[in-house]
C-alpha cells in the first residue's frame, strides 16, 4: 500500500504539544529504556521516525501511542532532549482528534479559547434551561419529591438523554478506531475468533490498568503512586457515573439513607477528590517529567472535574443539613459543569477511558494474529525449482 507523505504533519503536531520531534537523531535509547516496548510494538523511536517522515496515514493506524503510559523515562534518557514521552502524549491527543469524525476534538485541542468558550456556552444554556424548568414546575425550597425544583425523575430522564448522545458519539469513534487500526492498518489475516478469545482484555485493562503499574519499576515516585491514584480516580469516576445514570432516584431521595447507594457514593468521592487534587498539584509543581508540560486541554480536564466534584459535595452537604434552597442552587451549578463535561467527553482527553482498553484489546489480537501468520509462513516449504 502506498503511503502519502504529509511534510507539514510535524508542524501540525506542534499544536498538540510535540515541539521537539525534529531534534531526534534515531539513537534508540528511548525504545531501550521503555518498559513497554517489545518485539511487536517498538516505540517511541519508531513513532518519532514516522513523525519526522510525515507518515500521517501510518500513524493514524498505529496503536503504539496508546500502549505508552508516559512514565517519562525516555524523556529523561534522551540525549537530544527531543522529549519522546511528550511526543507520544501529543500523538494520543492527535489520535483522539483523528478518531472523532466530527472534527470538534481537533478544534478543542488546537485552541484553548474555543474549548473554554464551548464549555461556557453549553453551561449557560444548561443553567438557563434548568432554572426555567425548575421555576415553571416547582419551588426552590423543595429538593425532592412532590413539587421539587429539580425532581429526580426529571434528572434521571435528563441524564439518560445526555448519556445516550455521549454513547452514540463514543461508539462511532470507537468503530472508527477499529476500522483504522484493524482494517486499514492490518495487512495480515485476523481470524474472527481471536476477537472472542482476547475479549477478556477489555475488562481486565479497564479495571486494573495493569500496564500502568508496570511503568513504575525504576521511577523515583513513591510506590505505585500515579498508578494507584489514577486507578482510584477512574474507578471513582465510573462508579459515580453509574450511580448518577442508574440510581439517581435513590441518591436524591429524602432524609433516610440507603447505605448501599451512599457507601458507593462516598467511596467514589474519595477517589475523585484525591485524584483531581493530586493531578492538579503535580501539574502545578511540575515535579515529574510527565507533568512538566501541560497542554491546555489537560488543565481544562482536571480543573473542570474538580469543580464538578466540589459542587457535588457542597450540594450533598446542603441537602443533608436541610438547606434546600442552597442545595437546589448548587445543584444547578453542578449540572452546569456536568452537562458540558459529559458532552465534551468523546472529543476530549477523557475518551482515553475507552480507547486505552480497546487499544490493549486490539494490540493483543494483532500480536496473536501476527505470530500465527509467521508460523504459517515458516511451515510452508519454499520451492526453489
Amino acid at each position, binding site marked *: 500500500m502506498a503511503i502519502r507523505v504529509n511534510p507539514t504533519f510535524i508542524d501540525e503536531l506542534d499544536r498538540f504539544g510535540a515541539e521537539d520531534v525534529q531534534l531526534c*537523531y*534515531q539513537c534508540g535509547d*528511548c525504545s*531501550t529504556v521503555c518498559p513497554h516496548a517489545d518485539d511487536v510494538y*517498538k516505540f517511541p*523511536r519508531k513513532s518519532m521516525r514516522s513523525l519526522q517522515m510525515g507518515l500521517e496515514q501510518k500513524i493514524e493506524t498505529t496503536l503504539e501511542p496508546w500502549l505508552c503510559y508516559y512514565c517519562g523515562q525516555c524523556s529523561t534518557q534522551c*540525549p537530544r532532549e527531543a522529549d519522546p514521552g511528550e511526543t507520544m502524549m501529543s500523538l494520543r491527543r492527535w489520535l483522539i482528534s483523528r478518531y472523532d469524525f466530527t472534527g470538534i476534538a481537533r478544534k478543542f485541542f488546537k485552541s484553548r479559547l474555543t474549548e473554554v468558550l464551548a464549555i461556557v456556552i453549553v453551561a449557560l444554556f444548561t443553567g438557563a434551561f434548568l432554572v426555567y424548568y425548575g421555576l415553571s414546575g416547582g419551588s426552590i425550597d423543595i429538593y425532592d419529591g412532590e413539587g421539587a425544583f429539580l425532581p429526580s425523575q426529571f434528572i434521571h430522564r435528563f441524564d439518560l438523554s445526555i448519556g445516550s448522545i455521549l454513547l452514540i458519539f463514543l461508539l462511532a469513534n470507537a468503530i472508527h478506531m477499529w476500522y483504522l487500526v484493524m482494517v486499514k492498518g492490518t495487512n495480515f489475516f485476523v481470524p474472527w475468533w481471536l476477537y472472542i478469545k482476547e475479549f477478556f482484555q477489555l475488562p481486565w485493562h479497564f479495571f486494573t490498568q495493569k500496564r500502568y503499574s508496570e511503568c513504575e519499576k525504576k521511577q523515583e515516585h513513591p510506590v505505585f503512586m500515579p498508578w494507584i491514584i489514577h486507578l482510584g480516580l477512574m474507578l471513582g469516576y465510573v462508579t459515580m457515573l453509574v450511580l448518577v445514570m442508574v440510581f439517581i432516584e435513590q441518591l436524591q431521595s429524602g432524609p433516610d439513607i440507603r447505605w448501599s447507594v451512599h457507601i458507593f457514593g462516598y467511596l467514589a468521592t474519595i477517589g475523585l477528590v484525591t485524584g483531581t487534587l493530586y493531578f492538579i498539584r503535580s501539574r502545578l509543581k511540575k515535579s515529574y517529567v510527565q507533568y512538566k508540560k501541560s497542554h491546555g486541554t489537560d488543565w481544562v480536564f482536571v480543573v473542570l472535574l474538580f469543580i464538578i466534584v466540589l459542587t457535588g459535595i457542597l450540594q450533598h452537604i446542603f441537602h443533608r443539613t436541610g438547606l434546600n434552597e442552597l442545595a437546589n442552587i448548587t445543584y444547578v451549578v453542578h449540572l452546569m459543569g456536568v452537562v458540558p463535561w459529559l458532552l465534551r467527553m468523546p472529543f476530549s482527553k477523557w475518551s482515553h477511558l475507552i480507547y486505552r482498553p480497546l487499544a490493549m484489546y486490539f494490540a493483543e489480537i494483532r500480536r496473536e494474529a501476527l505470530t500465527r501468520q509467521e508460523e504459517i509462513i515458516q511451515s510452508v516449504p519454499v520451492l526453489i525449482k
Partner: protein
Amino acid sequence: MRTGVFFCHTDESRNLNIDAIAKYSANLPEVETVQILRLKPLPQVKFISEQIKSNNLERIVLAGDMPGYFKPVFTKAVALTGGNTDEIRLASFQEHGAKGENAMDRAKAIVACATMGIPFPLAAVPGGNPVNHATLIIGAGIAGIQAALEIANAGKQVYLVEQSGTIGGHMAMFDKTFPTLDCAACILTPKMVSVGQHEMIRLLTRSKLVAVSGKPGAYRVKVRQKARFVDVKSCVACNICAEVCPVKVKSEFDAGISLRKAIYIPFPQAVPNAYLVDETKCTYILSEGQKCGVCMKKCPKECINLNETDKIIDIEVGNIILATGYELLDVSKIEQYGYGIFPNVLTSLEFERITNASGTTGGRIVTKTLVTNKKTGKEEWIFSPEGIPPGSVAIIHCVGSRNKKYNPYCSRVCCMYSLKFAHLIKEKVPNVNVYEFYIDMRAFGKGYEEFAERIKQEGTFVVRGHSASVAMKDEHMVVRGEDIFNDRLVEFNVDMVVLAVGLVPSQGTEEISRMLGVQRDSDGWFSELDYNGSPTDTDKGGIYVAGMCQAPKDIPDTVAQASAVAAGVLGSFTSGKGIGHMSSLSLSEIESRAKKIHAF
C-alpha cells in the same frame, strides 16, 4: 568632512555599552551628529534623509553588529539628498571582533577608524616585535613531541613542559593505532627517545606554568618544577627502590587498573628513564621524614633524595605552543551503564591498557577476577593474566558524546577506536561475539570506511542503535538495545562492556587559558583564531594550539597540526618579527595609527 554616526541594533550578549561608545564618538573630530537608532527592523528613508539634510552631512558611519543590513536604507537616503554614497562607512562590531575583555575599547576604535574613513584592519595591524628564538611547548604528548622535534631539528631551542613524570601522553598508553593497526609504541617511543636526547630540547617534567608576562615575541614564563626526589642522571632504573617501597597506589598510566608503588617509573620506556616519587603518597614525605625512607637506604646508586624541594625556573621565549590534550569524561555520572557498579564495565582507556602487551594482563583480554585483598580482607575485582577471556563483549559508542546533558559535540575518535577494539578482541579471543552499538558511524578519514567494512566482514555484530542500559540479570550482564536496521529489540548476554567515553579538555586547560588570556569555546577547548584559515593560531599573538586541546582529533590530524604549528613558529624566526594579534593593541595605539594614516 562632516560626519554623522548612526548606531544600529547590537546584540545584548556582546555586552557593549552603546551610550558610552556614542559619547566617545561625539568627541571625535568632524563628527556633527551621533544618533542611536532603536528602530527595528529598518529605519525610515525619509527620516534619515532629513537628518542628513539638516546636519549637512558628507559622511555617514553605521555602527552596529551587522550594519550592512541597514546600508540599503542609508544608500537610498544619501542618494535622495544628492550626497556621495561611497561615503557610507560601516563600523561592524561583529566583523572586527568587538567581544571579550576589551570589547569596549575595540568598539570605540572601530567607530573611530570608520569616522576617519580608514579600514579598521589597516590601522589595527600589530607591529612586529623582535622575536626570541626559544619556544615553550606546554604538554608533551604526541602533539608536543612532534612540534618540539620539528623546531629543535631546525636548530632552535625548545622548552618542553610536562606535568607528569614522563613524556608520551595518552598515545603511550595505546596498543594499536587505527586504521593501519600499527603498534602505537613503535611510532611514539623513537620520537620520545630523540626528544630525551636532543641537545636543543630542554625537558621539564613534573612542571607547571605559574605565571606568564611579556608580549608576542618576548614572553617571560615562570615554571614550577616539582621535586622528582630521584636524580635523573644517575638513576639506572634498576627497580630496587620500587621493590622495597611499601605504599601501593593505582597506576595513572594503566588507567587505574593496576597498582604501582609510591616510588615508580610510569612505564619501562619512560623518558626521562628514571624513577620518581609520588609526594602525595610517600610515607617519608607525608610524615616529614619521621617514617620509612627505605628506598633511600637501599638505592645502590644513592640517587634518591626525599628531602628535595620544588624549583622555580624562569624562561624567556618568543612563542608558546599549547598542547595540553584531553581526558575522559567522568563516566560514573552516567548511571545507566553501571560503570563502577558492575566490575566488567570498562572505559576505553582501561580496555586499551588490558589489550596492550605491556599492560597488567600482558595483552590478554580477560574479565576481572575476584580476589581477596590480604591486607584489608576485602574482596576486590582485579585484572590478572589468569583471568577468564570473555565469551561476548558489547562496545557502546557515544557514551556522553553527542548528548545535550554531557558533551554536545562528537568526540571524533570513538567510532574508529571502537572498531579497532572489535578487531583486537576478535583477533585475540577465539569464538567471541562482539556487539557494536552505534548511532552514526563516523569513519571519516583515509582508509577509515574501508576499516569499518573490514570489521563488519570479520563477523562483528554492528548494531545500528544506541544502548542505554546495562543491567544484571541472573548473574549475567545484559545489554539492551534497538537494532534499527533489522527492526527488533535486542538483548545480549555479555561478559564485558566497553564504553566509548567522550573526551573533555584536560583539567588544567581553564587555568592555562586564564593565565595566557587565550579564549576557550563553549565546550572548553581552546579557540583557534579562524577555523578554516588559521587553525593553529590563537587570538593572542605568538601563542599556538596543537592537538586535542583545540578540539578532539585523531593521531594523524594531531601530528599534522603539530607540524603546522612548528612551521608557524619557525616562520616567525625568519621574519624576525613576532606578530601580535590585533587584540594586543590598545585603543590609543590604534587611534594614533589611524590619525597617522589619515594625515598621510
